[in-house]
């Protein structure tokens, strides 16, 4: 039953994605498209309040009862549980070498690294590098579509949302406990909650800072998210050597403008 719901969500999102995919490039600073801005701002505000009254206090509590060492171990273990998904995604991206590294890391860290709490494999030269479904879809040249803010989950695009749904549906933790109805739900919820809290805690300083310095937190978040997404490229994207962040930065009448300023 639960599986069915997950799949329906996936397909709904896929249908949504197909119907409204647009070019997500933001090479020109002016062209940051946001056709659902009104709706997005409402959801953003809802998320902000939820974060303020629920997520952030919980994350602070988590920070208060744990030491940085413990939090690092937990982050490491959670990251380890993602390795099989990374391995699968690297295969889908036709990158068997990275896939093998992810898989080896999972085997080594799950055993010698004490269920992933320590990153032993990194010391062996197997560097951590995650791959997501969103990246895979981007490699397959699927467009990201318009910017959308999802309730609870935050900034996204249809492509990223489908990727997230896939990640959720194919998560090894979910499948490992699937046949045991007694613990399945408990494990799934605790796992999701721990992931959310750990992520929120690790991003605390950054988001606090961004928020404090923002005159329009929504716009700042959107811009950062879309720029970050723009690094995901299609496999046959012919690069002309131009970096995605190489915006037109020249100002023609610069000297004139500053002359005026100086004269003032």
């Amino acid at each position, binding site marked *: 039953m639960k599986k069915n719901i997950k799949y329906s969500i996936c397909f709904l999102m896929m249908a949504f994605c197909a119907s409204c995919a647009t070019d997500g490039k933001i090479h020109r600073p*002016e062209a940051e498209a946001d056709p659902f801005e009104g709706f997005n701002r409402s959801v953003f505000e809802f998320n902000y309040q939820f974060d303020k009254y629920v997520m952030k206090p919980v994350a602070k509590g988590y920070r208060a009862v744990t030491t940085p060492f413990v939090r690092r171990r937990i982050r490491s273990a959670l990251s380890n549980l993602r390795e099989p998904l990374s391995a699968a995604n690297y295969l889908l991206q036709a990158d068997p070498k990275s896939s093998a590294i992810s898989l080896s890391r999972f085997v080594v860290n799950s055993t010698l690294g004490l269920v992933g709490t320590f990153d032993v494999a990194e010391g062996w030269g197997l560097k951590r590098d995650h791959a997501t479904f969103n990246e895979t879809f981007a490699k397959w040249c699927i467009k990201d579509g318009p910017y959308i803010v999802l309730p609870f989950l935050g900034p996204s695009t249809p492509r990223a949302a489908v990727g997230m749904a896939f990640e959720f549906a194919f998560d090894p933790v979910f499948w490992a406990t699937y046949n045991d109805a007694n613990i399945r739900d408990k494990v799934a919820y605790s796992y999701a909650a721990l992931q959310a809290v750990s992520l929120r805690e690790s991003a605390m300083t950054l988001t606090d800072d961004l928020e404090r310095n923002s*005159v*329009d937190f929504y*716009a700042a978040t959107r811009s950062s998210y879309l720029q970050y997404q723009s690094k995901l490229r299609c496999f046959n994207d012919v690069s002309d050597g131009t970096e995605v*962040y190489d915006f037109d*930065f020249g100002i023609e009448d610069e000297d004139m403008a500053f002359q005026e300023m100086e004269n003032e």
Partner: protein
Amino acid sequence: MKKNLLSVLTACMVFLAGGARAEVNAGKAETFVKNVTAEGIEEIINANVPQAEKDARFAKLFNEALDLDFIGQFVLGRNWRTATPAQRKEFIQVYRQLNISTWSKRFDEFKGKNFVFKGTSPSNSQGQVFVNSLVPMDQGEPAKVVWRVREKNGQYKIVDIIIENVSLAITARNEYTAFIKNNPGGIDALIANLKSKI
């Protein structure tokens, strides 16, 4: 043979065109960024001086290394054209102060970290180049930090910092444009809002 000649000619043309487009010295730009980061780490983060002295040193380094007049103008976008000279001046001043106070507070988080420089990439903008660097993290992959450097009259200045593909200048530009668009107070309201954050 003929084909070879053609490719040499093409190469020459490309080289000339590239030279005409941006004659910025990439090597010098990279050295400039290296020196700035080294000074920041040695003279500020690792220096055994009171916080007030650190802040003063940071403000000095920031003003010398970054072209805030240029960045401020870019960040205001099309609103720069309609702004009065007084507004322009005040905006740049406030934007400078806000950046200095924000970054000097966060600078200490950088303790124990360092930059690994990875060469340069060309830019389409006149006299500008990207200096690439990586910052190794405690866990996982290193963070990619790219410095946009502009050469003017033989002087090098940083005009943008791009962290994991997110440009600080573009983010500020988009944010301020949105603010001005949604706010009846326009640029004056923006200046007042930024002032309240310093």
